[in-house]
């Protein structure tokens, strides 16, 4: 899980072009959306692509996105439970 969390943080920073953000800056339980990292609706859609591209998980219901991407921990948990790659 540690390795996944670390990898996830790096991927998110890269894919979402989060300038000036380092993996150690991201708290595992902090909200990713809203005030947290300030991610928006386009970022949420890009994370859906990340799920499929890197982990083979196709999100059938994009509405579940807010729940899954709530924090790094919820994100990592979802991946480890559903990973296909």
């Amino acid at each position: 899980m540690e390795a996944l969390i670390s990898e996830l943080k790096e991927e998110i920073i890269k894919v979402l072009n989060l300038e000036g953000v380092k993996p150690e800056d991201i708290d595992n339980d902090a909200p990713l959306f809203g005030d947290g990292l300030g991610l928006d609706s386009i970022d949420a859609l890009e994370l859906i692509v990340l799920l499929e591209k890197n982990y083979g998980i196709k999100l059938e219901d994009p509405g579940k996105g807010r729940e899954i991407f709530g924090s790094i921990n919820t994100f990592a948990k979802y991946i480890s439970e559903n990973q296909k790659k």
Partner: protein
Amino acid sequence: MELSIQKYCTILPLEVGINGHRLIDVEVQESLEKSLVQTYRNLGLEYLKFFKMDNLPKLATLAAECLLKDTELYPKTDNDNVAVVLSNASSSLVADAKYQQTINDPGNYFPSPSLFVYTLPNITIGEICIKHKIYGENIFLVSQSFNAETLHLHVNELFEKTNTRFCITGWVECNETTYEAFLMLVVNEKSDNIFDIKTLEHLYKNK
């Protein structure tokens, strides 16, 4: 009505100029994207959304920032009497080509929404309006080369026919080999640079 160019800004890969005078130099970089980022740093800007943008809106954001700084419209106008009329030759082709890469290979087919959103040239206007809270008339025109006649006609009519009192207008071109921005702030006041076709062509040519 006496339209004039209150201020203008030019941005090229190696320099930024205001009213024909060099503001800053930019060191040579390995890519156009890196040149835009270095320009951002040299200007001392702090706007994290910049890093999510494609090259074209990056360029326009820098140009608008330099243009509006130290004017009564900075940092935000919060008004719809400011119009934005931008033009270029390549539309959003640089972003288009990047997006195309994400759908070319059926075995690696992952269309990217954050790339797709920039495949419209007017997103560039959107980014400027968001940053400077501009609600006014806006349009994006495409032409093979800088077209002073059309820009002049359009901007002139906006001042005549709408509530426009200020207009951010010019040329913001980004392609695979280079970029150039020539952005003007047009106002309904007398000043040294009359807003007419001859002046437009002269200033563009000598940027």
